[in-house]
């Protein structure tokens, strides 16, 4: 090889050397052993971005591990991630919704974290439903980002005006109280239930089904939603009657999404609402709500033979199979997951930050006892009720590889019954049929 510094070297030699040096400098010729120096790639949806960045900065300072952080809007997150997985884009740690876990785990994109005792130890301090929501086929795929559940809220002032002393404890009582409120002219549609076709819909429906003592599927994963004694038919029939017979829920519920439902309830249009638990902070904020200070949480009303059960969901930090394939990267990724989903410097710092910043829930039991968390929550709601209802929360029983496809059919079927295009039984028969077909195909 000629030396570019010697007199006889050509321009071509110089260019070759320069190109080689450039490629080497860019890392393309780096040996596998040098991968440890490459930064981790962390991807989230666009929520709590500043909080994430600040916590990430602390992680980098503490560990010396560099992290490339990126995010995408929630609405496009699944598509974006799937495309990245298929395109083998560099990804190490990412936020995952429990709804996508079977799909991503079966595709081999996510790696279980069971081999990391530093991560698994946190299960002992977390609510069971949240841990179960991160597990698939006996393996665990990450640590919590946040967890929450569908809650039942009421406007105490409206109930008082109607002479009602206690919130309803059953769905039948809710009908009676609503009729009373309606008759008193306090609210035209006392109950607010968002039923628009969006990703929230399954959470509302599952909460209704669970509180009616049933489920969509049994323990073996077979469809039970069309069985009249298994909760779903009762739940849907209750909604159909509430809209069409009692007229306590607006027929516009099929075009009302979770966010519009929140706005409608906080504008004082309703006495009762099903909403995500963390919305209580907005509902009791005078800057954002006309009924601030009057909104209380009660246990989910129970159906006949049902309970106060509700649905909980989990969003968690997962590790990609790509990261797990390299020991050093996997170890660094596990450290990052622990920093966010577990303890950072001996505290559940990230979960507390999220709670204080946006009011999102947590799976860690000890945070319910944290004086700072309690003091913060007491400003707008009742911590005891928060914790009590969380104990009734269960993970969704429809989270499978075919969930997305079935959800399209199911959402449409429930809406069909509500708008009177089919009966509750017919709608759920269609939903069960779709479930069984998809299950057979997969």
């Amino acid at each position, binding site marked *: 090889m000629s030396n570019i510094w010697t007199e006889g070297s050509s321009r071509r030699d110089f260019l070759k050397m320069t190109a080689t040096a450039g490629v080497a400098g860019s890392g393309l010729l780096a040996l596998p052993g040098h991968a440890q120096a490459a930064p981790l790639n962390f991807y989230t949806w666009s929520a709590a971005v500043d909080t994430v960045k600040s916590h990430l900065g602390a992680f980098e300072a503490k560990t010396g591990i560099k992290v490339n952080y990126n995010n995408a809007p929630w609405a496009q997150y699944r598509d974006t991630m799937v495309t990245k997985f298929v395109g083998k884009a560099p990804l190490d740690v990412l936020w995952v919704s429990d709804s996508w876990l079977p799909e991503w785990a079966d595709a081999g994109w996510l790696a279980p974290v069971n081999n990391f005792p530093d991560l698994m130890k946190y299960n002992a301090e977390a609510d069971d439903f949240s841990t179960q929501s991160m597990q698939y086929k006996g393996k665990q795929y990450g640590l919590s980002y946040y967890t929450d559940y569908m809650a039942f809220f009421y406007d105490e002032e409206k109930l008082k005006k109607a002479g009602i002393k206690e919130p309803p404890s059953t769905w039948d009582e809710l009908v009676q109280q609503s009729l009373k409120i309606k008759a008193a002219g306090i609210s035209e549609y006392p109950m607010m239930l968002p039923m628009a076709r969006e990703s929230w819909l399954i959470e509302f429906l599952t909460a209704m089904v669970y509180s009616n003592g049933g489920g969509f599927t049994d323990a073996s994963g077979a469809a039970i939603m069309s069985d009249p004694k298994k909760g779903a038919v009762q739940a849907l029939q209750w909604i159909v009657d509430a809209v069409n017979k009692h007229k306590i829920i607006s027929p516009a519920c099929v075009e009302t999404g979770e966010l*519009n439902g929140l706005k409608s309830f906080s504008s004082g249009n309703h006495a009762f609402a099903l909403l995500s638990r963390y919305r209580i902070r907005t509902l009791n904020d005078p800057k954002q709500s006309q009924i601030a200070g009057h909104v209380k949480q009660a246990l989910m009303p129970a159906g006949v033979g049902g309970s106060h059960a509700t649905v909980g969901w989990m969003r968690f930090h997962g590790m990609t199979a790509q990261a797990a394939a390299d020991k050093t990267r996997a170890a660094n990724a596990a450290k990052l997951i622990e920093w966010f989903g577990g303890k950072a410097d001996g505290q559940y710092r990230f979960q507390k930050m999220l709670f204080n910043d946006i009011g999102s829930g947590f799976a860690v039991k000890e945070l319910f006892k944290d004086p700072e968390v309690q003091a913060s929550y007491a400003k707008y709601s009742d911590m005891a009720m928060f914790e009590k209802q969380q104990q009734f929360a269960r993970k969704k029983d429809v989270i499978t590889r075919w969930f997305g496809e079935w959800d*399209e059919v199911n959402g449409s079927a429930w809406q069909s019954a509500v708008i009177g295009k089919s009966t509750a039984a017919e709608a759920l028969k269609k939903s069960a049929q779709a479930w069984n077909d998809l299950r057979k195909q997969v």
Partner: protein
Amino acid sequence: MSNRTPALRRLIGRPVSAYDQKSAMLFLAPMMVILTVVAVFPILYSFWISLFDLKLTRPHRAPFVWLDNYAHIFQDSMFWDSVGRSTSFTLMSVSAIMFIAMLMALLLNEEFRGRRILSAILLIPWAIPYVANGLMWKWIYDSGYGALNGLLFQLGLIDKYMVMLGDVQKTMLLITNSFVWKEVPLATILLLVTLKSIRADLYSAAKVDGANVWQRFVHITLPALTPGFALVMIYETMMAIRHFDLFFILTEGGPADASHVVAWQVYVETFRKLAFGTGAALAYIMAIVTFTLAFFIIRSTSRKL
């Protein structure tokens, strides 16, 4: 090349040399390469994809299934229901656009004070992006606080706010209305240009012959507008069949399946189910239908264009 050579010869006004042909090919080559990469290849590749049972969430198994995706689509009752909805949406919207655009064009063809301002105002809906248009109409149609309900209530036409997009009887009509509102300006311009090309002496001669306004409209204006109508019909039919944005923003195919049109089904298959094989097949069917329709419309009106 043999067919093209005389045309080229006419164009440059002298015999075409091999050098000319090579030069022409050379100059065209970059654009042909770009077109091949960005248009021809994706079109062919998406057809290739439509022959596979390809799901992004099942990356390790994508069997070649020949035309099974197409067969499944044609056996699916949901597809035929969505074809029905797309057809009725297209018929309603294209008829309304042509009728309203004709009235607007006739109005703007007259001389009156404020005509220029009215012309400028007319362009506003056209200038608004589809997504912004959809979000605006979502607010207008809202059953709880929407401006349409507010207006009807203020006018005393309703005694309480009505369910709008959530009412299956109204859903498609309301979406059609939003689409028509957005599309009328362009159609008006196309018809106005055609109107401007009608010779004034035709009207003068008709007046001399004693033709009244209606007769002049029927016997002069309408026939002369035919090329404009043909253009509007072709363009708006293609737009309506493929239209997706308003269905996505206003209803997401609901309530139930009330606004589940073919374009929405393509989206659901491709981006929600991530079933790229079926999605590509559906998109191909939609493209073929669109081109076939355009072909027949062009053929039946070609003499008038």
